[in-house]
């Protein structure tokens, strides 16, 4: 496309395009006020400007496919010109967490062991995005195999929080959250095993949703913990998240844990919520998620949010979920147990890294050398924990007990949802912490997922919506809204109402990249 076409009447500047919500971009693209190619190019330019270098930029992307993105954008523009856009989001760019398989881009899960691997198949969610005419820009960074809360466990270096490039963007999906927060992409997909969509959303001031387990196909998601993993949307607004949610959701024959129930009407709920009325809605504050270990600024922002919800007409009560205190230890037995089995396939025999294949080493030695070189410390730690938890002498006391705790957590949710429509808590106890601060302290790192893990163990829906800035450090805080399984729409409704009431002033959506600019 020539420059004359690009600068035609009504065209927006690149910096305006990267600040728009996906819904507004889609409206303009479908009204042919701007082309998908222009929107795509604006985002590619933004990535070019702020993502690198890997050592100091945002570093949200592990792989960029500018050519493929522009080709997809052109195809979307043609379909729109023919009056047949594939979906309401056709032509809108999207970033993909690099643990989702893609035929046209490498898929590494941020691990050396899969460096350069090109899957022969697309994940179901990727296929659905393509069919809906969205424009995949590239693959985003994550903690290796989604194990972590900061992206510091990525084999390819951490991503950085656009609000402060010395701080973590959350994890494991810090690439997706920072890409969305920095205006590199209006939308992204993440995967949430213990909070990997919600916690990055909270610390980057973006929206992150973990849908009900089984409502979005996991086919093509490189498994970390199969009974907990759930793919979900990352966006800058609740409505955008809902629009993306509807594109990727729904039953898939390739995932037998996907449910046949119809997808909850999340877009409708987001639109209804935006009218700002929560009268008749009963909201429960989980009392276990406050107090010691919670940053005062986070609790302050949360308290403000509770007041706002009350002003919207909701009845806010306190509920106790005593078993939630078991969630973290239970999670750190169940998730590593499943991971130890899921990651056993990385043995250098069929794909990925192979070390020591020199004719001198036997197959099992090649496997050991490859895993030694190809897996990072956190991955090895979890494989060892999980292998131990499942072993004959420990199974009942560790894995078995953790499953019992899981049952208790499900019961607490069931009881709480008998009296409340949704439950709320801070998404994570603190704001974004400095890179390196918890890197050598796994237990401190694990605490970042304290509030998000129960919903993974129970399989219900939960999201994080920005709720202002912490008074003590000026960084974003997230409000977590949890809803019963298959009632994702309730969380969307409450989040959308809160989002409107909160209004602007929660800080710039595309924060200035201060640290980056000062280094230039």
């Amino acid at each position, binding site marked *: 496309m020539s420059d004359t076409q690009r600068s035609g009447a009504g065209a927006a500047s690149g910096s305006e395009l990267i600040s728009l919500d996906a819904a507004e971009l889609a409206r303009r693209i479908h009204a042919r006020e701007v082309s998908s190619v222009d929107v795509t190019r604006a985002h590619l330019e933004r990535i070019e400007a702020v993502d690198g270098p890997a050592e100091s930029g945002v570093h949200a992307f592990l792989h960029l496919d500018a050519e493929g993105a522009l080709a997809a954008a052109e195809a979307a523009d043609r379909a729109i010109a023919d009056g047949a856009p594939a979906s309401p989001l056709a032509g809108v760019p999207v970033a993909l967490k690099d643990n989702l398989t893609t035929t046209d881009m490498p898929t590494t899960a941020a691990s050396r062991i899969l460096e350069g691997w090109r*899957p022969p198949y697309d994940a179901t969610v990727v296929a659905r995005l393509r069919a809906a005419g969205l424009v995949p820009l590239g693959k985003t960074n994550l903690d290796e195999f989604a194990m972590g809360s900061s992206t510091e466990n990525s084999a390819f270096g951490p991503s950085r929080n656009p609000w402060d490039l010395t701080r973590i963007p959350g994890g494991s999906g810090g690439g997706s959250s920072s890409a969305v927060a920095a205006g590199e992409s209006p939308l992204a997909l993440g995967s949430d095993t213990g909070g990997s969509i919600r916690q990055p959303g909270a610390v980057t001031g973006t929206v992150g949703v973990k849908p009900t387990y089984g409502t979005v196909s996991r*086919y093509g998601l*490189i498994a970390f913990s199969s009974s907990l993993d759930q793919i979900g949307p990352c966006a800058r607004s609740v409505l955008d998240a809902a629009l993306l949610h509807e594109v990727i959701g729904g039953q898939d024959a390739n995932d037998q*844990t996907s449910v046949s129930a119809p997808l909850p009407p999340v877009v409708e709920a987001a639109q209804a919520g935006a009218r700002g009325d929560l009268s008749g809605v009963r909201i429960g504050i989980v009392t276990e998620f406050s107090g010691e270990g919670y940053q005062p600024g986070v609790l302050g922002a949360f308290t403000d949010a509770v007041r706002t919800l009350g002003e919207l007409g909701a009845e806010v009560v306190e509920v106790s979920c005593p078993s939630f205190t078991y969630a973290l230890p239970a999670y750190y037995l169940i998730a590593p147990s499943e991971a130890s089995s899921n990651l056993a396939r*990385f043995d250098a025999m069929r794909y990925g890294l192979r070390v020591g294949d020199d004719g001198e080493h036997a197959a099992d030695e090649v496997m050991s050398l490859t895993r030694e070189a190809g897996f990072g410390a956190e991955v090895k730690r979890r494989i060892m924990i999980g292998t131990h938890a*499942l*072993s004959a002498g420990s199974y009942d006391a560790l894995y078995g007990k953790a499953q019992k705790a899981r049952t208790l957590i499900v019961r607490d949710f069931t009881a709480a949802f008998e009296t409340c429509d949704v439950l709320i808590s801070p998404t994570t106890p603190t704001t974004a912490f400095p890179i390196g601060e918890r890197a050598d302290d796994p237990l401190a790192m694990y605490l970042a997922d304290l509030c998000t893990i129960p919903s993974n163990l129970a399989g219900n829906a939960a999201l994080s919506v920005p709720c202002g800035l912490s008074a003590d450090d000026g960084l974003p805080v997230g409000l977590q809204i949890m809803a019963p399984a298959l009632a994702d729409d309730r969380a969307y409704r409450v989040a959308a109402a809160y989002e409107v009431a909160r209004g602007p002033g929660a800080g710039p959506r595309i924060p200035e990249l201060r640290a980056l600019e000062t280094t230039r």
Partner: protein
Amino acid sequence: MTATIDAAPYTVEEVCERFDPVMGLEVHVELNTATKMFCGCANAFGAEPNTNICPVCLGLPGSLPRLNGTAVESAIKIGLALNCQVRERSGFARKNYFYPDMPKNFQISQYEDPIVFDGYLDVPLDDGTTWRVEIERAHMEEDTGKSLHIGGATGRIHGADHSLLDYNRAGVPLIEIVTKPIVGAGVRAPEVARAYVTALRDVLRGLGVSDVRMDQGSMRCDANVSLKPKDTEAFGTRTETKNVNSLRSVERAVRYEMGRHAGVLLSGGTVTQETRHFDEQSGTTSAGRPKETFADYRFFPEPDLPPLEPSRDWVETLRAGLPERPWERRARIQTDWGLSDEELRDLVNADALDLVADTVDAGAPPEAARSWWVSYLAQQANTAGVTLPELAITPAQVARVVALVADGTLTNKLARQVVDGVLAGEGEPDEVVTGRGLAVVSDESALTAAVDEALAAQPDIAEKIRAGKTKAAGAIVGAVMKATRGQADAARVQELVLERCR
């Protein structure tokens, strides 16, 4: 290796003077579903390596299993045919261990809750009595791929230069059928083992759920054997013998292990719990590579598959649709056809029962059908070195030959030539008759002319016949049969000879 060194030191009879043998038999059966257990790849034997594969059966990152409903149906049918309970809620588990030909490095199997359990099979023994083998469980699992070790003398992994992996078999549905301990069979233990596997094969063949070919590995048997002193209750240490690839080998492997265990025990030693390999040539077993580490499979519930809850209606529909059990069918056939016990057993042992039954179903009288399969066709199979079912002739074709004999188109001798033609690939029986020109000469005038010619050629014999010595007619009949190259109906010729000499 010589027989004296390898022979077990004690005969079964000697063993059983001091010990009671205890057996446990584990039979793996590959199901003959069109597709694999957890993906849509073809379940086919003998394809080019790595052609029936996809992301799922290769266990590629991100792939998920998708359960084959037909495999579940087959598992339930097998359970019902073995008088098992069908579990209302069962599930899959992961069995974790490393092996290069196992793509995910775990096998999806069933652990604490197999789909069917607690059954029995009444096994017919050689003397016509029945032995009840109790079934512990039957569960579903996926097969592994195959490793091919290249270089080195043995084809085994040690000494090989490199290994090739073929994943065509990875994900093929398997059913493992496990017996409860078989106690009290005494000297008959080897026979009971063989008879059980035979009966199981017949049941599975009758269900049509598997090819049950031990030679191709679609049915594999592991034989656990231990001995307990006659006056004790506790079982002895067992060994598990693998690589038992024929029905006869099942019997031989059990017999050998009984003798070997007795030898160890009576010389004051202890039996080592281990896996042993059966050697078809010598009929002996040898210790497998000792396991360096304790195998902990770290079973846990497979999170990628929902629980299995077959509806009662479905189970009852499958139960109602079960075919007649082979032993019931045999009893019915024996009555219908009026066979002696011995005749029936010969048919079963020769693998001929189904063939004869199918031939009868195709219209042949039971006696004629039986006679063809157990005599002439059995000889042909023997000569060709194949089993009876492998012969290149179908029951329908045999029935057609029988019909051609019955309507006088063929004599028995001609019929054998037609069968030879079918076996040689010359087509259907009628095509062979035409192709080889084998039909009986039934043209009366041609036959009469041949008779007259033979009488004229041997006037002295003709005279004897005319004098009433009808026995002499045989020589003339022989001459006529010779002249017609056997294509005449000898009985009719006899009649004509007598007629012309009247």
